[in-house]
């Protein structure tokens, strides 16, 4: 059972990304109109735009929130080859009365020579860190050593992926058994480029990120990639949005069997593959516990996927982009807890460049 609420976004061009904050009460949208808007949810459940400002000199592809332990911080990335970090300033009282807040740019990351296609903050246990990826195939990891000073970021790593990158995802697991991991997806259309999803792992000894795995079976352009939150599993789950929805498990192979000091080897299995969208899938997003995956596609629908207690993945809900239910949706009764609980991670934006749809 879903309830849909439509919000007039007032962006003057395509909306490329939607991101909820940690608690699901704030939302950021970014657009080809070069601006970012921040929305706050009131007690009554209505969304109000509390900030709208020009962030870049080109289309803004993605926007993402930092963990609230670092305050109210956003990062955006753009076609203008930069990524930026923004912080909310507690405003004057008359600002507050008007329900407006003010965001200032803390830093611009200008190292990329090409469009920056994704920006994501690292899990909070790694400190204040973020990664960007660009069309030139380089993933850059930046860190702010002083969390109270958001203007100082240093480039810590440059990871070459050899393919034009479209999306990245940090593994959120904070378990000591798992070193930091980044998954990178590519939408490279050159004929030589084969496997379009790669996993990089941080090596304590070399203090560098090294490639751990390439998902050889993913040969179509990848539009989105997302590690699932880890409930204490020894293995990882990765969702990929490509010409269909795919879910992989990555089981670390025991260290004794691999050459010591090298990156972890993984047993990769595909546990689900769904082409129900019957078109390109643009976004995948996990809920808090990593038990439900949401996907959006060019068919204008959002689909929810869930594994039952036997670990069989099935569709548990279909939602049309305009909020109307889809008739004949299977198992509508076993659909999820109200959308609210998924909301913090549900990115139901439809990528504009291909579908040409506005988020209404």
């Amino acid at each position, binding site marked *: *059972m879903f309830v849909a609420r439509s919000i007039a976004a007032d962006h003057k061009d395509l909306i490329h990304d939607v991101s909820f904050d940690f*608690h699901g009460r704030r939302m950021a949208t970014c657009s080809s109109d070069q601006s970012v808007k921040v929305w706050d949810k009131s007690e009554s459940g209505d969304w109000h735009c509390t900030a709208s400002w020009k962030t870049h000199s080109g289309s803004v592809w993605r926007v993402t929130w930092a963990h609230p332990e670092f305050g109210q911080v956003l990062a955006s990335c753009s076609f203008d080859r930069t990524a930026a970090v923004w912080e909310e300033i*507690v405003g004057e009282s008359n600002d507050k009365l008007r329900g407006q807040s003010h965001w200032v740019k803390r830093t611009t990351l200008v190292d990329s020579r090409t469009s920056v296609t994704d920006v994501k903050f690292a899990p909070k246990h790694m400190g204040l860190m973020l990664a960007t990826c660009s069309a030139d195939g380089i993933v850059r990891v930046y860190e702010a050593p002083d969390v109270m000073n958001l203007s100082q970021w240093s480039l810590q790593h440059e990871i070459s992926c050899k393919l034009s990158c479209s999306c990245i995802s940090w593994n959120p697991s904070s378990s000591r058994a798992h070193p930091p991991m980044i998954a990178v997806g590519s939408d490279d259309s050159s004929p030589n480029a084969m496997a379009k999803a790669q996993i990089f792992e941080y090596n304590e000894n070399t203090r560098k990120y090294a490639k751990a795995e390439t998902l050889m079976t993913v040969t179509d352009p990848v539009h989105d990639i997302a590690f699932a939150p880890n409930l204490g599993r020894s293995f990882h789950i990765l969702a990929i949005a490509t010409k269909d929805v795919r879910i992989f498990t990555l089981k670390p192979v025991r260290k004794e069997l691999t050459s010591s000091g090298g990156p972890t080897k993984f047993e990769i299995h595909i546990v689900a593959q769904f082409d129900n969208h019957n078109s390109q899938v643009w976004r995948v997003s996990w809920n808090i*516990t990593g038990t439900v995956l949401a996907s959006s596609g060019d068919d204008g629908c959002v689909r929810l996927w869930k594994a039952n207690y036997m670990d069989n993945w099935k569709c548990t809900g279909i939602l049309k982009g305009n909020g109307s239910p889809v008739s004949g949706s299977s198992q509508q009764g*076993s659909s999820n807890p109200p959308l609210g609980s998924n909301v913090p991670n549900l990115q139901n934006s439809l990528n504009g460049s291909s579908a040409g749809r506005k988020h209404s």
Partner: protein
Amino acid sequence: MEEMHQVAIAAKDPASGRQFSSQVSILSAMELIWNLCEILFIEVAPAGPLLLHLLDWVRLHVCEVDSLSADVLGSENPSKHESFWNLVTVLVLQGRLDEARQMLSREADASPTSAGMCRILGDLMRTMPVLSPGNTQTLTELELKWQHWHEECERHLQDGTFASSPHLESLCKIMLGDEAALLEQKKLLSNWYHFLVTRLLYSHPTVKPMDLYFYAQSSLDLFLGGESSPEPLDNILMAAFEFDIHQVIKECSIALSNWWFVAHLTDLLDHCKLLQSHNLYFGSNMREFLLLEYASGLFAHHSLWQLGVDYFDYCPELGRVSLELHIERIPLSTEQKALKVLRVCEQRQMTEQVRSICKILAMKAVRNNRLGSALSWSIRAKDAAFATLVSDRFLRDYCERGCFSDLDLIDNLGPAMMLSDRLTFLGKYREFHRLYGEKRFVDAASLLLSLMTSQIAPRSFWMTLLTDALPLLEQKQVIFSAEQTYELMRCLEDLTSGKPVCGEPDPQRLQDDDVETTKVEMLRLALARNLARSIIKEGSLEGS
């Protein structure tokens, strides 16, 4: 449930009335299913008692009888009431033969012509063999007796005893379990499971549990008569009659829109160890799976999340980690809510969550310049680094404004003061001010000195401390001893020696040169004077 009924009836507009009514019907359906599961799976009633339980079940859930009964009996002339025969029929259908007999005797009183027939039928009713609880007769005995009784009824029917009263004849046929007669009463039966139970009562009272399904299926088919197809509720009940627990749970999951019912039913069945015995080796996994689903759903609610916590507690494998993930995401709209959430975490030793939540709140407070709040959250988070940061802000505020904010908090730090050096300094510094205010100058002086000599005070603050010492130096009485004065002088020299302390550039010194120089000179003068006086004082005999 009754409240819901009343609300539904009292609803002002049809839409909400409909909504309440539908909720009532969902709840009734749930109760219906639950009770049936109790009878079949938990009581595991054997043949004999099984029918009695099912009769109870039907009586409980098909409750039009009572209102009908009230209507009829409350009227002036019950036996002439238009629904009189309906009432009697329903009573018979539900196996409430004593009550039916009473009705018949009224009819007998009212119309003497049928008195005889009523009496005979009443006798038949009275003599129907039933298995009463505590009865020691075996099933075989019961069956035998019942067979005799059945034949007697049959004889009466054949003899045409009730021929002149269609009502009575129909009742007799019902009591003989005649399907056609029963199906004529579809409206009164209102559903196929009532039909099933009545049918069993009057044709197979010693039905065995394993045969239930067969009768249920045929009852459903006969009742629907090919006119309509089974609804989800029917499928669920059918699965229960089939003793297919898994199917019951599956159908319920599909039909109901939230996990509440299924989670609790599965939990109950698991506690009765039924999931294993029914060959569901994933039984307890399924129980936990459903409970986790239900609890997760509760967390989306602004206050029901507290219930969710309890449910997670009862999930041995993934409950704790699920709770950890969910509880961090609860929006902390008020301080009260934050405290509730923290209490939940602290009770379960979820230290990382406590730290994280406090940190989020501390950060929010710092950005809103509510330093006292920020400090108390840092202390609760045991976050030494952040406590240092907030203490620094306090001290900076003091330097700028000459007074402290949030005195209450700082005064009552207690052992929390030890969290960070800077915090300890803040607390002690405030204590110095208090001592000074209470005119306990000697104590204040010693404290001030110790703050510098013990290295607790940050270097950048020394000038302020020395400046604070000035009034003490210029008191009429000598407060600082010679020893202490030497120490103070040493500190001052350290500070003014010109080399910047590593890591602490002091741009202020360059800017406020004039002010600084004046201050330093005043201090030197005061210290020198104090030294002189203290030497004299200490060199003199006591009492001067």
